[in-house]
């Protein structure tokens, strides 16, 4: 049974009717009342920008906060490959149901049916809205939109703009936001960081934010607060997230009573550029779309792998029969397009067995030579009427096609590694990329704290234990453009009599004081080690024990290590500069302090989940073939954690009910 503290508020009725009925019956707020209702949006990525502009269009008074120097820099901008939508433009059998089904299955049956179905339903509207706002998606010669394939699906439903889909979608949403800023409907607070949630009588009533330029703390009232603050992958230090991506807003909410759901569900993306040395500050993703045409392999012979690592052998000289295309071998039905968790574990398995390449032994090949020549080269040769093209001709023709499709990604790879991927196979290795876990929300996207919402990656709701590629952009925009504008009415229609509360209220004064105290404490430690020093150590503990593979002993050890590291941080960190100035070290210190608490909860969550599912792989629970072994009888629930005090959490369970999908062992074979 679900905990009484967790009311998912899923509407009654058949799956297909829930959202339609909800939209027709949800209470509305009349336009005159909207003008006196204030909404705070924290974060300006896809979820935040789309929510803020849409709510402002509806007439609400909106304030937007982001820590970057402009709303346009939010990390949604870095998403490469694409955005899913059940348009079925390719006539290949796609439908709302199929997108829903793929997402639930891809998430290894740990997501809510009703939320995911709604996501699939609004997916098509997102593409329409984005095109209308000037997003230049890739098109075919006939002028219609182009699609490509992503992992975990067998239809082509991914819309894209070269390898810059996130950038184009975000700039579309950002331009809508800036339009509202220009019209005075949105007040923008760039270079501001939210550092506390303000609660009055158990209800969320505002935030405390720090102006990052002057260091001044500010109090802001809102009838509702929307956290659109992204994921917490940077707890691992090395990830594909931006340097500033952090958990702070969500964590402050958690410490003020909002439950944190499934924190251990993190996504390790299989195709990232491998670590090159101790100086490494972040990892760079190579889009999943590359797996459309790239074949993943390692040498079949241990001695070949060893020779490559020592720089004595060039991979191009390894014969076809001496290569192990391990994904095609293990998963013939999906091949190189298996979901991310499966592909990542398979890479780790080969590298752990000694077949890894790169000097570190922690890399596999993503090779385009085959499709460049024998797929695209041949098509081009046929077009040109060349019956028996030479190998050189095939390569030349194919090179052009591959450049057109993935040019910017290949350039980026070359820039970072110094190796030309047109001539040599890319080297890739899994890296932390996305977090499925996040603040627990109900069907309305509201946390268990009234008035406090979480959208996009910051919530837990749609991706279960593993997110499919091209679904993060879809969820961010679905939540912002099409879900929150309706669901927020359910709450705000009861708030029309609430006058704006003065920020001189004791709750604001107290919240500001607690933020100031924390800042002064951090600066006052004046220890001997930098913030990065602690962040890197935390990252290593997390990666080693709560990364791609986890086990009971490791997780228990990690919890002890994190606690020790946390106390060392609070007695020995050195934060340079002052509180009342532009101070990036202070910003980092606050974020790392929160990661040092979150890390413990992630390990605790991984420890209680005695099963393997999606991105959560417990070594004790696997099949003989090394696949994840789920335990639906005992773990078919959302784990929502309530913080009693630091180091002491209570687990609440939301039982997941599958009325429309038959739960099955996930198979991509």
């Amino acid at each position, binding site marked *: 049974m679900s905990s009484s503290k967790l009311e998912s508020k899923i509407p009654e009725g058949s799956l297909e009717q829930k959202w339609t009925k909800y939209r027709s019956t949800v209470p509305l707020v009349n336009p005159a009342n909207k003008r006196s209702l204030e909404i705070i949006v924290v974060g300006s990525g896809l979820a935040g920008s789309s929510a803020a502009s849409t709510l402002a269009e509806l007439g609400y008074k909106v304030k937007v906060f982001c820590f970057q120097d402009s709303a346009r820099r939010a990390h949604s901008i870095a998403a490469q490959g694409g955005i899913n939508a059940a348009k079925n433009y390719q006539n290949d059998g796609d439908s709302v149901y199929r997108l829903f089904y793929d997402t639930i299955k891809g998430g290894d049956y740990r997501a809510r049916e009703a939320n995911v179905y709604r996501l699939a339903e609004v997916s098509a509207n997102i593409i329409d809205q984005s*095109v*209308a706002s000037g997003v230049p998606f890739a098109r075919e010669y006939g002028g219609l939109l182009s699609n490509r394939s992503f992992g975990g699906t067998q239809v082509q439903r991914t819309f894209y703009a070269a390898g810059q889909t996130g950038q*184009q979608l975000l700039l579309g949403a950002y331009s*809508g936001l*800036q339009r509202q800023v220009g019209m005075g409907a949105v007040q923008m607070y760039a270079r501001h960081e939210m550092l506390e949630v303000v609660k009055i009588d158990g209800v969320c009533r505002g935030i405390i934010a720090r102006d990052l330029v002057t260091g001044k703390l500010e109090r802001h009232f809102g009838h509702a607060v929307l956290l659109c603050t992204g994921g917490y992958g940077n707890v691992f230090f090395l990830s594909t997230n931006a340097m500033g991506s952090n958990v702070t807003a969500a964590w402050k909410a958690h410490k003020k009573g909002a439950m944190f759901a499934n924190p251990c569900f993190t996504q390790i993306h299989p195709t990232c550029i491998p670590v090159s040395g101790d100086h490494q500050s972040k990892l760079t993703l190579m889009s999943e779309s590359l797996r459309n045409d790239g074949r993943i392999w390692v040498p079949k012979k241990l001695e070949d792998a060893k020779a490559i690592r020592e720089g004595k052998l060039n991979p191009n000289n390894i014969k076809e029969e001496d290569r192990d295309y391990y994904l095609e071998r293990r998963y013939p039905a999906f091949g190189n397009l298996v979901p991310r968790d499966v592909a990542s574990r398979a890479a780790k398995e080969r590298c752990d067995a000694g077949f890894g390449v790169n000097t570190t032994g922690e890399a596999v090949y993503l090779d385009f030579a085959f499709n460049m020549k024998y797929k695209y080269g041949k098509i081009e040769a046929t077009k040109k009427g060349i019956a028996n093209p030479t190998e050189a001709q095939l390569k030349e023709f194919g090179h052009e096609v591959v450049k057109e499709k993935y040019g910017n990604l290949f350039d980026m790879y070359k820039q970072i590694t110094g190796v030309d991927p047109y001539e040599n196979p890319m080297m890739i290795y899994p890296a932390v990329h996305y977090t499925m876990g996040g603040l627990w929300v109900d069907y309305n996207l509201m946390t268990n704290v009234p008035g406090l919402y979480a959208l996009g990656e910051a919530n837990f709701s749609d991706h279960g234990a593993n997110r499919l590629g091209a679904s993060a952009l879809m969820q961010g925009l679905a939540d912002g453009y099409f879900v929150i504008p309706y669901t927020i009415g359910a709450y705000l229609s009861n708030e029309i009599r609430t006058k704006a509360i003065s920020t001189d209220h004791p709750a604001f004064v107290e919240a500001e004081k607690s933020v100031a105290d924390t800042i002064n404490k951090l600066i006052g430690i004046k220890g001997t080690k930098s913030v990065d020093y602690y962040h890197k150590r935390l990252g290593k503990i997390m990666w080693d024990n709560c990364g791609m593979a986890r086990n009971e002993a490791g997780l228990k050890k990690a919890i002890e290590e994190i606690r020790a590291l946390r106390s060392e941080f609070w007695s020995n960190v050195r934060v340079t500069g002052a509180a009342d100035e532009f101070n990036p070290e202070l910003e980092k210190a606050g974020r790392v302090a929160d990661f040092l608490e979150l890390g413990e909860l992630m390990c605790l969550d991984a420890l209680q989940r005695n099963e393997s599912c999606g991105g959560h792989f417990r070594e004790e629970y696997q099949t003989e073939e090394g696949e994840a072994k789920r335990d639906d009888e005992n773990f078919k629930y959302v784990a929502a954690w309530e913080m009693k005090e630091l180091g002491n959490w209570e687990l609440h369970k939301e039982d997941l009910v599958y009325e429309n999908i038959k739960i099955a062992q996930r198979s991509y074979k």
Partner: protein
Amino acid sequence: MSEKLLNLTLKVWRQRNSKDKGGFETYAMKGVSTDMSFLEMFDVLNEQLINEGKDPVAFDHDCREGICGMCSMFINGRPHGPKQAVTTCQLHMRSFNDGDTITVEPWRAKPFPVIKDLVVDRSSFDRIISAGGFISVNTGNAQDANAIPISKEDADESFAAAACIGCGACVAACKNASAMLFVSAKVSQLALLPQGQPEREQRVLNMVAQMDSEGFGSCTNTGACSAECPKEISLSNIARMNRDYFGASIAGK
């Protein structure tokens, strides 16, 4: 990835805040790996400074994969350094030689005041977008995405203009601190699409007016902006914007 180690001298602009006069500080860097990015070298420098009890260098950065547009260093007299078509975060130390002296400054332009060290205020760009860099379509008003076919050529050209990351290198490169490349990229992106037509004339007039009021300089067709642009935004966008601007002005909009 054949790593080498470099010894370098860095001359870095230090300025406590917008009111401070500022000046160069010199730092010796030893054993810098050629596999490092330019910003990772700054991480190492800052770690060094923190360990010595000194104030680290403030610099803007976020995604470190060349797309957010946050990083902004003026390196040896060129925005984003010596390589074509890369941002500072994608510039790697293999582009430098052992013994080099590297000078690093903030973007220098009146509409980009320095906040601290290498960090500048680029909010003027946001205000230009707010003046007209959008299509006025409220959520829910869109028709089916395939209802308006757009020729691949136009879509591709629009996309090429839309690739602008708003970093401000064009302004920093320009001797007049003109923002014409940035503004024209947005104007072109929307002018090339059917969805952008209804507001086409008003958009260009409003965006140019805002650009002028922010204090950006005039364009004298030197082309340094495009040459230094990390996304290789084409100068032809400026020509297109000029045509649209004159057309709209003559039409008396």
